[in-house]
C-alpha cells in the first residue's frame, strides 16, 4: 500500500460540485463514482448528469433524499445510460424523468459492489486502489462547521446521513487520513474536500462502502 494516493493525481476525478439546497448528496456521490470509473477505463473525464439520477432513480426521493445503494441498484437493473451533465443539467429540484433513445450516447454500469469495511480500513484503502473512488455514507452533522484539518472527533458511526466520495488517502503524517470529496461547493472545507482520520471508523466512514464497475 503506498503511503499516499489520490485519484485526483491520475486526473480521473471531476471538479467538486455544489448540491445547493437539494438533498441529493447520494446522487452526486454515485455520479462522481461513475465519472471516475469511465475515466479510469480511458474515456475522457466528463461531468455526467446528476439531475438524471435525481429525476429517474424511482427508488429514491430526489432532492428529498436517497441512498447510494438504491441508486446503484437502479443503474444496474435498468442499465440506464447516464448522459452528460450539459445535456441534462442540475436544477436544484426534482423534475420529471427525461428519457433518451437507445442510440443516444451515455454511460451505463456493469456492476457494483458494496461492503462494510469497519475494522478493515487498510483493506478499504486497497479497495480504493483497485476499484477507484469509493462511495461512502458518513455522519456529517459536525461538518456544518468544518473549515479544514483532519476530522477525528465530533461525529459517530451508526448515525450516517450524508453520501460522499473518497478519492484518496494520506498516511505520510502522524495522523493518516482519507481524502473525501464533498458536494457542497469548493468554498467548503479544503477546496471542497474533507480530511477524515483513517482507522477507528470515524464518522462511520467504513460502514457503507460501495464501488462501481463499468
Amino acid at each position: 500500500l503506498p503511503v499516499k494516493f489520490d485519484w485526483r493525481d491520475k486526473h480521473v476525478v471531476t471538479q467538486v460540485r455544489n448540491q445547493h439546497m437539494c438533498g441529493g448528496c447520494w446522487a452526486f456521490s454515485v455520479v462522481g463514482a461513475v465519472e471516475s470509473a469511465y475515466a479510469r477505463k480511458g474515456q475522457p473525464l466528463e461531468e455526467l448528469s446528476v439531475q438524471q439520477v435525481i429525476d429517474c432513480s424511482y427508488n429514491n426521493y430526489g432532492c428529498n433524499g436517497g441512498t447510494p445503494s438504491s441508486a446503484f441498484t437502479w443503474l444496474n437493473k435498468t442499465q440506464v445510460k447516464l448522459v452528460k451533465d450539459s445535456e441534462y443539467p442540475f436544477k436544484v429540484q426534482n423534475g420529471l424523468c427525461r428519457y433518451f433513445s437507445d442510440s443516444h450516447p451515455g454511460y451505463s454500469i456493469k456492476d457494483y459492489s458494496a461492503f462494510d469495511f469497519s475494522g478493515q480500513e487498510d483493506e478499504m484503502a486497497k479497495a480504493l486502489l483497485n476499484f477507484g473512488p469509493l462511495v461512502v455514507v458518513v455522519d456529517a452533522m459536525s461538518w456544518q462547521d468544518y473549515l479544514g484539518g483532519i476530522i477525528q472527533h465530533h461525529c459517530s458511526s451508526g448515525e450516517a446521513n450524508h453520501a460522499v466520495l473518497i478519492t484518496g488517502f494520506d498516511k505520510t503524517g502522524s495522523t493518516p487520513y482519507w481524502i473525501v470529496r464533498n458536494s457542497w461547493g469548493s468554498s467548503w472545507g479544503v477546496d471542497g474536500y474533507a480530511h477524515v482520520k483513517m482507522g477507528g471508523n470515524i464518522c462511520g466512514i467504513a460502514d457503507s462502502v460501495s464501488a462501481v464497475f463499468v
Partner: protein
Amino acid sequence: DNKGPGAAFIPSGPRSRERQTAAFRESLKRHHYLNSLFPGENYTAVYGVNQFSYLLPEEFKAIYLRSKPSKYPRYPVEAPKPTSSVP
C-alpha cells in the same frame, strides 16, 4: 450582523433576519466548543464560519443530510496462503 463573515452565503428564502442572526450566534458558540475540546492535537479539524453558519443545526440536517447508510455484508478478507502453496 449580515455584513460579517459569511454574509455572501446567507440562504435565500423566507427566513427572518432574526432567525439567521440567532443561528449565527449559535454557530459561534458551537465553533468555540468544537475547537476547545482537543486543542493540542496535531492537525485536528478546525471549525468556524462558513456558508452554513446562518443555518440552525436542524435546518442544516433537514436540507443537506438526506442520505442514510445501507446494511452491507462485511468485506471478506482473503486468508493468507501458506508459503508452501505459493508457486
